[in-house]
């Protein structure tokens, strides 16, 4: 497999993760009617555009898409990490950014006792970042 095909496949993988996450988020809010909290909205802001930006760099293939997508993924990852810590209780009460509306510390789902929506988000952003970094050509750095 050529380097370019390998990179394309990785970016395609990142796009699959971003699209599945986007549809998943929409499923929670629009179908199950779980209201998204403030932190969820920030993660959505960084996840949803990836669904559109990545394909633009895939057809025709453009290495630079990694540079365009990484800042979004990185900031999304930070919000997801913060949210996971908040739910886990590692961040004290006073630092919670939302006092009104939907509390971000509320666990809407908890599959197998530990899988929460922010955790899914963190895993998705991590996978996307890893794919993008692996797709970036070493010799161009």
């Amino acid at each position: 497999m050529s380097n370019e095909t390998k990179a394309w496949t990785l970016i395609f993988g990142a796009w699959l993760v971003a699209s599945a996450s986007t549809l998943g988020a929409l499923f929670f809010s629009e179908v199950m009617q779980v209201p998204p909290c403030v932190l969820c909205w920030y993660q959505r802001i960084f996840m949803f555009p990836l669904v559109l930006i990545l394909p633009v760099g895939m057809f025709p293939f453009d290495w630079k898409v990694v540079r365009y997508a990484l800042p979004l993924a990185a900031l999304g990852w930070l919000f997801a990490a913060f949210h996971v810590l908040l739910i886990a209780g590692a961040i004290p009460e006073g630092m919670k950014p939302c006092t009104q509306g939907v509390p971000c510390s509320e666990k809407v789902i908890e599959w197998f006792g530990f899988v929460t929506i922010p955790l899914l988000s963190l895993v998705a952003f991590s996978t996307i970042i890893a794919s993008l970094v692996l797709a970036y050509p070493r010799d161009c750095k």
Partner: protein
Amino acid sequence: MKKETLFVIAAVGLLLVFLFGTLIYKSAKNDSSAQLAESNRANLVRLHSPTLGKDDAPVVIVEFLDPACSTCREFYPLVKKMMAANPDRIRLVLRYAPFHDGSDKVVAVLAAARKQGKFWPALEALLAAQSQWVLDHKPQLALVWKHLEGLGLNLEQLRADMAAPEIAKMVAQDLEDARVLNVTQTPEFFVNGKPLPSFGYEPLKELVDKALTSASR
């Protein structure tokens, strides 16, 4: 496989999974809420609930209502219109669902107004003036009173009646019934015991029309 083909197949596949997931989730949810209403009929109508319309009307609409909820305000005239279009054939049973913080006090005002035989005028006056006593989604009891003037209510008596333990008990019962029936947002309607398949005026009208036709057969 060509990259373009792969991409299109993946995109369509994801969308299909989403659509099927939605359909399956919705039908499972409808089944379960219909079943919930079916197996908890006693929780649907209580003797203490205010009703409008003839007692032997063939179609009974049970509405869980929060006086501070703006969608409830918008639905109220629509329900009245349906009742006016089918005189004596629809009965409205109101259940209290004071989900807004502080709404329970306004419900107590209404329940006390009912003791003076003025429940419906009081409810209508408060719904019409809702934007003036619900500020920022927070009901303000102090701002309620002036909208009740001119209804011929004895407000002093009303204030005394508000604190009656049976009113608190009734509200608690309604909230408990809402919990049992999984009513989480207002307004929520049940037409002859059946929940709305999806929220909106159209689904409500459809359900009522269906009940009216099957009643006249």
